[in-house]
């Protein structure tokens, strides 16, 4: 029986192995090809013959009930497994995967996202590399070329390799291997036995070729042990329902650690080795030159000639028959890049890794999330278009809202199909949203990334936002998540995210951070208004948060440096603006009044930084809590002789800054300032002039001019264009007023 089995021990992702496998398959003309890979991938294997499936691609196995439990088996064009699949498809030979089914593998996972089965031992993970390293090679592929391909004159290298590997296995620390390894090999033998039976029954005389990692070759070659022992090893393995699908992959993801243990660091070089058997070094360095020229670095043909010579001389010096990646890289650095590491960086990025994106045909079974995304996009009448297009949505219409929700959910999942125009989202007119849509091919990878979160867009976004809220570092992060929850309409996520917010707020001692969280929440309530979401829970959270802020504020404002005070002043403004918006109902007014109360305490304390005290007085004046005369008095007091200059400046700055336009239109504020200024004596005036200059210097020139004009009117001088008493024709203005009133809510 054994002469009907041909074991082809390969190096995963080894272009040399791939070429040898192809040659060997051509020679053997096997009746069936067994390939190391999850056996339950059988239903999706025929897709490999589809020309629409372009590597790099990966087989994804996931548990349908919990998509985060998943495993990947990536293939590049130079992967021997891929080439064996292609050979079988091209020659109408049946191919089977022979490794443990994904259902068994997933059952052994604790629910964590993890990459596919990697062997523990370094030697077991890439035994060919271990052999090559023993022979003094740092590039196992060049070792394969030197020793296996160029020296065998067409003979099969695999028998010798299996023997060598038997030695490596014998020398390994655990001869029997891990239990997991034992199970895998037992399973492979069982599949092999079945394959032998099936081909014999079908009357096919050809051998069965097994393409598997070189490490496993000795376990499958030679006379097979009795089947009963293997059956015993495999009995009672836990299983879990697994679904499999092809997904597009990229070279950079191959470069990261991947399904077969160690990742490969130079997929671009391997691809070159596989696709360019002739003049490998010369063609590579020519491509390097092209890359450098594309970056405007002058490289001539003479440079390439010298680089080829240096690479070959280096190989000779090192006793290698062929130049490998190390030699060509060093030649590139010394000759083409003048020793400049930035230039060599371009080459590494563009060529050695050489980003390529694979493709999967539409007919192939897709990842459920991908299928759902496409269905949702169809339902929302959005096309996955690679050309950028602008989209303006009216959130008051159901269609506009549905689209907005879908795009926001995708944004939560990190699938950057649409980019929201930031200022419009944050603008007060919350019924409009503007998006820029562009479907980039790489987004399929983002979809794969997001796939573990769930099978539908809504479920995945819900799972991800809850996770993000729980993992967020501070309150502001969670409140951003709350906003996303409402924007993306994920009602199931609201309660857990709010719980996370409450927990964070309880533990967060930083009042400034708590304060920055409030505006986002208030915005969220307003979105809710527009979208008709129930926001009572949210309002309760805002109230609770405000209570915490009010409790913490007195302690947080003492002993601040200028920077910290300036930061906190911004937070005060944000709180005030947000809470004023909220004060439209009973509860909102309660919340705001509590806030104004603590501001009042703040304004009265002498030990608070001037920036904050000044700003608190101003906010209170605006809110109508502090009578005008009182704020005028405080203004005068704080800028009087007994206060140190620096404090005066800070107070004036806190009171006035950012209010250039306000001074133009708020006659009360302006007259406070004007009265005070007019009452100053000569000496005092000289004293405060620099402080005022400083504050007013912060206003725009046009603002200053307008303030000047307003002051002139105040003093009864020449009337300006906006003198309130004249020029208004009530009758003609009535129409406009009605429209404005309708926009503002109609009540007033």
């Amino acid at each position, binding site marked *: 029986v054994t002469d009907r089995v041909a074991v082809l021990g390969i190096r995963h992702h080894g272009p040399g192995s791939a070429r040898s496998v192809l040659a060997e398959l051509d020679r053997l003309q096997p009746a069936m090809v067994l390939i190391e890979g999850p056996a339950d991938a059988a239903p999706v294997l025929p897709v490999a013959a589809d020309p629409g499936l372009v590597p790099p691609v990966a087989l994804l196995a996931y548990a349908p009930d919990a998509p985060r439990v998943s495993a990947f088996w990536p293939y590049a064009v130079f992967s021997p497994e891929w080439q064996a699949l292609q050979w079988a498809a091209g020659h109408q030979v049946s191919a089977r995967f022979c490794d443990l089914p994904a259902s068994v593998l997933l059952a052994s996972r604790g629910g964590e996202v993890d990459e596919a089965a990697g062997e523990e031992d370094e030697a077991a993970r890439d035994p060919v590399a271990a052999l090559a390293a023993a022979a003094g090679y740092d590039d196992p592929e060049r070792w394969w070329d030197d020793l296996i391909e160029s020296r065998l004159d067409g003979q099969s290298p695999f028998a010798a390799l299996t023997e060598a590997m038997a030695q490596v296995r014998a020398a390994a620390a655990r001869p029997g291997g891990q239990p997991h390894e034992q199970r895998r090999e037992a399973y492979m033998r069982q599949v092999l036995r079945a394959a032998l039976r099936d081909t014999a029954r079908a009357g096919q005389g050809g051998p069965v070729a097994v393409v598997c990692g070189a490490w496993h070759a000795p376990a499958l070659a030679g006379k097979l042990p009795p089947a009963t022992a293997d059956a015993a090893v495999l009995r009672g393995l836990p299983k879990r329902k697994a679904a499999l699908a092809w997904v597009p992959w990229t070279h950079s993801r191959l470069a990261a650690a991947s399904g077969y243990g160690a990742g490969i660091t130079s997929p671009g070089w391997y691809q070159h080795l596989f696709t360019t058997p002739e003049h490998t070094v010369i063609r590579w360095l020519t491509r390097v030159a092209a890359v450098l020229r594309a970056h405007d670095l002058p490289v001539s043909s003479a440079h390439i000639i*010298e680089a080829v010579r*240096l690479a070959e*001389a*280096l190989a000779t*010096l*090192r006793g290698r028959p062929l130049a490998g990646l190390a030699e060509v890289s*060093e030649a590139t*650095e010394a000759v083409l890049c003048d*020793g400049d590491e930035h230039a060599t960086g371009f080459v590494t990025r563009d060529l050695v890794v050489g980003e390529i994106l694979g493709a999967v045909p539409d007919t192939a079974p897709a990842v459920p999330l991908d299928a759902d995304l496409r269905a949702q996009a169809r339902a929302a009448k959005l096309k996955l278009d690679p050309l950028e297009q602008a989209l303006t949505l009216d959130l008051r219409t159901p269609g506009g809202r549905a689209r907005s929700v879908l795009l926001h959910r995708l944004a939560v999942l990190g699938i950057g199909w649409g980019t929201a125009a930031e200022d419009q989202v944050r603008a007060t007119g919350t019924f409009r949203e503007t998006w820029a849509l562009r479907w980039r091919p790489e987004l399929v990878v983002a979809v794969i990334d997001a796939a573990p979160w769930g099978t539908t867009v809504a479920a995945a976004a819900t799972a991800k936002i809850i996770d993000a809220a729980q993992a967020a570092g501070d309150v502001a992060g969670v409140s951003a998540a709350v906003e996303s929850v409402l924007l993306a309409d994920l009602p199931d996520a609201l309660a857990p995210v709010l719980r996370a917010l409450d927990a964070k707020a309880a533990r967060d001692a930083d009042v400034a951070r708590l304060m920055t969280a409030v505006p986002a929440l208030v915005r969220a309530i307003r979105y809710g208004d527009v979208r008709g979401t129930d926001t009572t829970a949210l309002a309760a959270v805002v109230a609770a948060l405000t209570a915490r802020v009010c409790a913490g504020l007195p302690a947080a404002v003492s002993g601040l440096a200028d920077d910290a005070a300036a930061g906190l002043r911004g937070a005060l403004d944000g709180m005030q603006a947000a809470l004023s918006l909220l004060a439209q109902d009973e509860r909102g007014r309660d919340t705001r009044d509590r806030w104004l109360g603590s501001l009042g305490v703040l304004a009265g304390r002498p030990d608070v930084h001037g920036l904050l005290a000044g700003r608190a007085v101003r906010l209170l004046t605006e809110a109508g809590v502090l009578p005008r005369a009182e704020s005028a008095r405080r203004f005068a007091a704080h800028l009087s002789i007994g206060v140190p200059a620096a404090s005066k400046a800070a107070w004036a700055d806190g009171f006035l800054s950012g209010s250039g336009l306000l001074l133009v239109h708020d006659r009360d504020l302006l007259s406070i300032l004007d009265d005070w200024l007019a009452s100053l004596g000569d000496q005092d005036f000289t004293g405060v002039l620099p402080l005022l200059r400083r504050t007013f210097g912060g206003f725009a020139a046009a603002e200053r001019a307008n303030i000047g004009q307003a002051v002139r009117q105040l003093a009864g001088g020449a009337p300006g264009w906006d003198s309130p008493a004249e020029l208004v024709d009530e009758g003609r203005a009535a129409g406009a007023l009605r429209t404005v009133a309708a926009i503002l809510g109609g009540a007033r």
Partner: protein
Amino acid sequence: LTTTTGKPLLRPHAEQVYAGELAALSAADDRTRPPSWRMSPQAVVTYLLGGTLPDGTGITPKYIGPRRLIEVAVATLATDRALLLLGLPGTAKTWVSEHLAAAISGDSGLLVQGTSGTAEEAIRYGWNYARLLAEGPSQAAMVPSPVLTAMAEGRIARVEELTRIPSDVQDALITVLSEKTLPVPELGIEVQAAKGFSVIATANDRDRGVNELSSALRRRFNTVVLPLPASEDEEVDIVARRVAELGQALELPEVPSAVEEIRRVVTVFRELRSGMTADRRTMLKSPTGTMSPAEAISVVTNGIALAAHFGDGVLRPADVAAGIAGTVIKDPVTDRGVWGEYLEAVVRERPGWADFYRACREVSG
């Protein structure tokens, strides 16, 4: 190793110091040698990086650093390309160039020292004017430059500090490196290079832009950038070896176990150079001067001389303190601040460094 007058040499050439190793390597070498080479490229790499020959002869490492750099350098010379060694001051550029020339041609003396005053005669040829006037132009009246000699004999010529040479003089090398010939129009002859001729040039990274190489010249060279030592242990090793060698050459009395003090000097240098303490917790300012292994070597050698002649024969913190302060403080205003800050913030707090701190304070005031 003595001068013609019988006095001992202050600094013998590499091929003189390591004559024994070179002979042993050459004898044991059975690989193919490029034309005119004294030994095979593999043997040259062994000479620079150290190793043991089959007959048990030990070869001391001359360069401690990445093997691939030396391999690229040797392979470059084997392909008859010129080699440009770039690096910060004190990264052993000259040292590597001297040893490469010694191993390949058995002669490291064909040297052009690049300065802003280097004239074209130093690279091409000059004339013996007395003879020129007396006999008219003839080959006997010609004074060949080291480069010309190297060409005629198929040896390695060395050009030090290439970027300090004025650009028009630099460009005299272009014909030599591309055509491998040097015409002498006065005599109507040309000198063609014999096989084995090549040029090793060194240039300082800090001098970039002084006399930047023209791109025509640049592309005749393969560039190898020599880095600063990667790890503290590597740097300690370099400094300790060189100090021991220098000590022997200068016949300083033996100073026992200076490793502790060397490690301290290296630590100070590495920290100031990188602007961060070894535990990466404190940011430091870097001084204006160079803080390479070469300076560390001279500080330690100086310290050993102090310890041997004026101290108790053991290298103490006080012996290296003055040297370190002198190396760090090149600019009297800014560097003094940098050094003071380092002393107060780092040295003072470090356990076991109290002696060193006191010694430095005494020196720096």
